[in-house]
């Protein structure tokens, strides 16, 4: 009999899985719970197009779900998992044969006084993007707390629309944990040349407000940066509370194997909520990216359908900042050797990372899709060898 699949989470991972199951001929029921009220949408455009672009890019048009017999329960939150009886509790109990947790991540809180006033936003959902759009008109001044990829994308889109932008980063450089020093430096220059102020090595002490609206960001050294809007982009934390409460193995994220299976063989987890194995990397890591979510959806679909497991993929993601289309493949680790191709000033370059033995470990590219694809291919063949 075709199993009844319950998916918790209506983001890219959950929606992709539901679609793949039907593509593969799955005949059993598919029920997908999403706690947002919007139909599943493309999340990457939110931080790139919130000023004037098309925000509402649906993953699939609304009739798709009915036609594909995917029972989408929007705005319905799952409160607990009963693994012994194989059911989840939402507005009513819902039994499953296979459970898939695709609950994603939420923005990390900034633990400083004053963050609960008006004009302070984070960016994760369509609702957040709509709020930010309302706040951020050209005559405004925005402070972005956190120089990660989301922060830089928001900064670029805001600056390109005439907003006065300041980025405050705790570490000594932007993208400190996710990019090479070279890329950090190139992007910092790129943003500064376009009028953005970047302050690194700076802790936020508190936010000040007047009449319930944020007025300034105050740093540890006492500097006050006047502003009308604050965007908090200090990372995301996995929404693994349901899994933790249900006793599944978790370690800041739901621990899964290379088939996206959790410590319970009837329960899978996919997407940003997982801590997963990555080819060529010791231990487990979190990969917050669309390609990782798609890959894990493929793994689970194959497992449920009894199809051959897909081959491991090279992790990668993309980011758009001003006219730079960045693509990064592999896992960037500190201490790697970096070879640069192309001139950063031209806006077209590639940074190839290699280890002591000369093997390529990652590539960071801007407006160089050919270099990116070539390096990604190289990375994949490298992984194939390491599996021999």
């Amino acid at each position: 009999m075709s199993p009844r699949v319950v998916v918790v989470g209506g983001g890219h991972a959950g929606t992709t899985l539901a679609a793949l199951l039907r593509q593969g001929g799955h005949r059993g029921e598919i029920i997908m719970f999403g706690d947002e009220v919007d139909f599943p949408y493309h999340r990457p455009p939110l931080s790139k197009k919130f000023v004037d672009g098309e925000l509402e890019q649906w993953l699939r048009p609304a009739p798709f779900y009915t036609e594909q017999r995917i029972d989408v329960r929007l705005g319905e939150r799952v409160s607990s998992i009963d693994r012994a009886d194989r059911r989840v509790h939402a507005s009513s109990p819902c039994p499953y044969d296979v459970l898939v947790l695709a609950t994603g991540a939420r923005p990390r809180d900034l633990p400083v006084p004053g963050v609960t006033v008006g004009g302070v936003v984070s960016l994760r959902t369509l609702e957040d993007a709509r709020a930010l759009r309302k706040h951020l008109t050209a005559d405004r001044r925005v402070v972005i707390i956190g120089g990660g990829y989301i922060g830089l994308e928001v900064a670029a889109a805001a600056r390109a629309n005439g907003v006065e932008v300041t980025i405050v980063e705790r570490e000594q450089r932007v993208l400190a944990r996710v990019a090479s020093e070279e890329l950090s430096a190139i992007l910092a220059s790129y943003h500064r040349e376009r009028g953005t102020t970047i302050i690194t090595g700076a802790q936020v002490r508190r936010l000040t407000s007047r009449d319930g609206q944020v007025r300034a960001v105050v740093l540890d050294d006492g500097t006050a940066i006047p502003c009308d809007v604050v965007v908090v982009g200090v990372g995301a934390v996995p929404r693994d509370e349901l899994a933790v409460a249900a006793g599944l193995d978790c370690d800041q994220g739901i621990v899964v194997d290379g088939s996206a299976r959790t410590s319970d063989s009837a329960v899978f987890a996919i997407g940003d909520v997982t801590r997963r194995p990555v080819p060529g990397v010791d231990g487990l890591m979190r990969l917050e990216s669309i390609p990782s979510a798609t890959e894990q959806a493929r793994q689970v679909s194959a497992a449920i359908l009894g199809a051959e497991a897909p081959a491991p993929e090279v992790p990668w993601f993309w980011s758009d900042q001003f006219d730079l289309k960045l693509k990064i493949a592999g896992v960037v680790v500190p201490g790697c050797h970096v070879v640069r191709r192309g001139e950063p000033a031209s806006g077209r370059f590639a940074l190839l990372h290699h280890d002591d033995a000369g093997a390529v470990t990652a590539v960071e590219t801007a407006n160089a899709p050919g270099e990116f694809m070539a390096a990604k291919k190289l990375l994949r063949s490298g992984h194939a060898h390491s599996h021999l």
Partner: protein
Amino acid sequence: MPTVTYELPDGSVHEVDVPCGQSVMDGSVRNNLAGIVAECGGSCSCATCHVYVDAGLFDEVSDEERELLEFAEGVRPESRLSCQLIVGEGCGGVRVRVPDTNGL
């Protein structure tokens, strides 16, 4: 509405009406056809919507698309990214073949 014929990796053939102004990728995603992954939603970023199609009916290949395709698995002279194939009135009856390598 022009009809686009999709030939999938498993050999099955699907005829889909695609509204003018939408892409060949849109028509596939809308109907949940296998093989066109389309991770980036059509922004010419991910190269997971690779198809084979005879030249002529669609806009020229941009430099960006050409570079993405150059190292794509299974690339051929008739390779295109289907998110860049915008369907117009003259596209009726077009046939695209979907390789089984998207997303690799």
